[in-house]
């Protein structure tokens, strides 16, 4: 099929990455900790790609992305608990369902808030993110299993290298196909000028909803993988600060660049976790001095991100 012929270079590259990582992990050349953060960086890439579709391509500023990441995480954890799923294969439908449900949540929330523009939209998504955090903190009151502010415990560890890498590659390809299709073009047209888009017949409300739901779907899939990598969920993992993480990755990578988001995701996770290794334990808090300083420098030096040239 065209899909695979077209993508053979990327698939080959993915295979090479897989081979290299597998060798490193199997022979114990990298610690379990490194393995964990490698998978985590892929998850961050998936979710950030979602925000890039929403913000980088369609221009809809969202500060609530972590909430959708959280919806995916809690939904999938709940599903594996209820259906007692432990293997990768039975986990796939649960993961897909979590993603779709998150996409639907994005759709429903998007209907009212995507009518807003720029800063008003930012405030509305911020509001939603905050509400979601409060909801999670009190979740044990309506569903005991979700754990409320104590956190969701006892999630089976299902996320492994094969699953994460194949899901990541598949979603990158799907996203690329969307971005370079008419839909991606309409999204970018809307970002450039909404009224002009209307004047050539683009249903801007529908297209913005499509971008938003798809971006949320990606966040949901990322969340589902995250839940089954760390096996423990806490409301604080899904608050506004987490949304900022995604935003930083999108901006570092360059708005509207898929490859940029991939590099930025790797750099961001690598950097935060790398500093944890490099810095002595009593100086760990210095991370949040070093990182913001670097961000300020980056914005002064390359305000449009490290990778600004669009790749087709």
């Amino acid at each position, binding site marked *: 099929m065209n899909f695979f012929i077209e993508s053979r270079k990327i698939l080959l590259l993915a295979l090479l990455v897989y081979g290299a990582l597998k060798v490193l992990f199997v022979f114990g050349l990298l610690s379990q900790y490194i393995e964990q953060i490698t998978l985590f960086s892929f998850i961050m890439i998936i979710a950030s790609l979602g925000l890039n579709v929403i913000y980088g391509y369609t221009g809809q500023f969202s500060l609530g992305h972590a909430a959708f990441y959280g919806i995916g995480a809690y939904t999938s954890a709940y599903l594996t608990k209820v259906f007692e799923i432990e293997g990768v294969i039975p986990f796939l439908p649960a993961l897909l369902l979590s993603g779709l449900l998150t996409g639907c949540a994005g759709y429903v929330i998007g209907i009212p808030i995507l009518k807003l523009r720029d800063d008003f939209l930012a405030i509305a998504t911020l509001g939603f993110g905050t509400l979601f955090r409060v909801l999670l903190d009190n979740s044990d009151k309506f569903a005991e299993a979700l754990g409320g502010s104590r956190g969701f415990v006892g999630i089976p560890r299902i996320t492994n290298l094969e699953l994460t890498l194949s899901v990541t590659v598949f979603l990158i390809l799907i996203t690329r196909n*969307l971005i370079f*299709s*008419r839909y991606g073009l*309409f999204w*970018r047209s809307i970002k*450039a000028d909404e*009224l*002009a888009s209307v*004047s*050539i017949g683009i249903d801007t409300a529908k297209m913005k909803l499509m971008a938003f739901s798809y971006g949320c779907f990606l966040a949901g899939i990322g969340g589902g993988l995250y839940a089954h990598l760390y096996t423990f969920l806490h409301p604080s993992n899904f608050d506004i600060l987490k949304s900022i993480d995604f935003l930083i990755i999108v901006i570092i990578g360059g708005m509207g660049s898929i490859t940029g988001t991939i590099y930025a995701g790797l750099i961001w996770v690598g950097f935060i976790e790398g500093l944890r290794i490099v810095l002595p334990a009593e100086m760990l808090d210095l991370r949040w001095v070093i990182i913001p300083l670097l961000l300020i420098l980056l914005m002064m030096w390359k305000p449009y991100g490290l990778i600004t040239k669009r790749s087709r």
Partner: protein
Amino acid sequence: MNVLEVENLRKSFGGVKAVDSISFHVREGETVSIIGPNGAGKTTVFNLITGFYKLDEGSVLFRNREITGLSPFRLPRLGMGRTFQNMRLFGELTVFENLLSGMLRKNGYNIFSTLFRTNHYFETESKAEEKARELIDFFHLSGKEDYPANSLPYGEQRRLELARALSIEPNLLLIDEPGAGMNPKEIQDLIETIRAVKERFSLTLLIIEHQMGLVMSLSDRVIVMDFGEKIMEGLPDEVRKDTRVIEAYLGEEFTG
């Protein structure tokens, strides 16, 4: 056949009557211009016809179809194209993409073809690209395909906006002040371009313009507005000599 029938349009902003019971029609193949001093309500009429503003009262028929109250994105799909007074290009998109967007809006493919890149996807894309290239040639923008639209000089941006409006293959084109900010030589070129466009794409035109030279040489009929009202309608020559019109333009006599 009347392509456009505007019946008793009214629109107020707060207490200000921007447009007050305007009626007119545009026949197939005609070029009709709306002139009038600044603030006369010309652009408001455009925005009411194209659905960008909601009417307070009145109705608009486009090719015998009631379009009053339709969402503004529906009208381009029915064949009504427009440009904007203060140019609205997709600035960060390339010249090529500016045109492709409209082409693929008109003749597209579904989400399944998109995700799996079926043959239909590639065929539709290359057809659209071919058409976009034709428009680029027609508007003398060759060689600039991959430039971001906002990097073009002013005159070329104007041409690109016209080309983009044509990318949806409209029957009726509404052009809002095409001559704004142009010198007499550029106006001459613009007149030629509009003539050629009309001929080539068999269009019906409704133009808002200040430049009398352009209005007089292109229009079949002219509608004159002042303070939100239509003060007269007639052939270019009639309008030129009408005392009410001269008055509205502060006693200036038209030349051209």
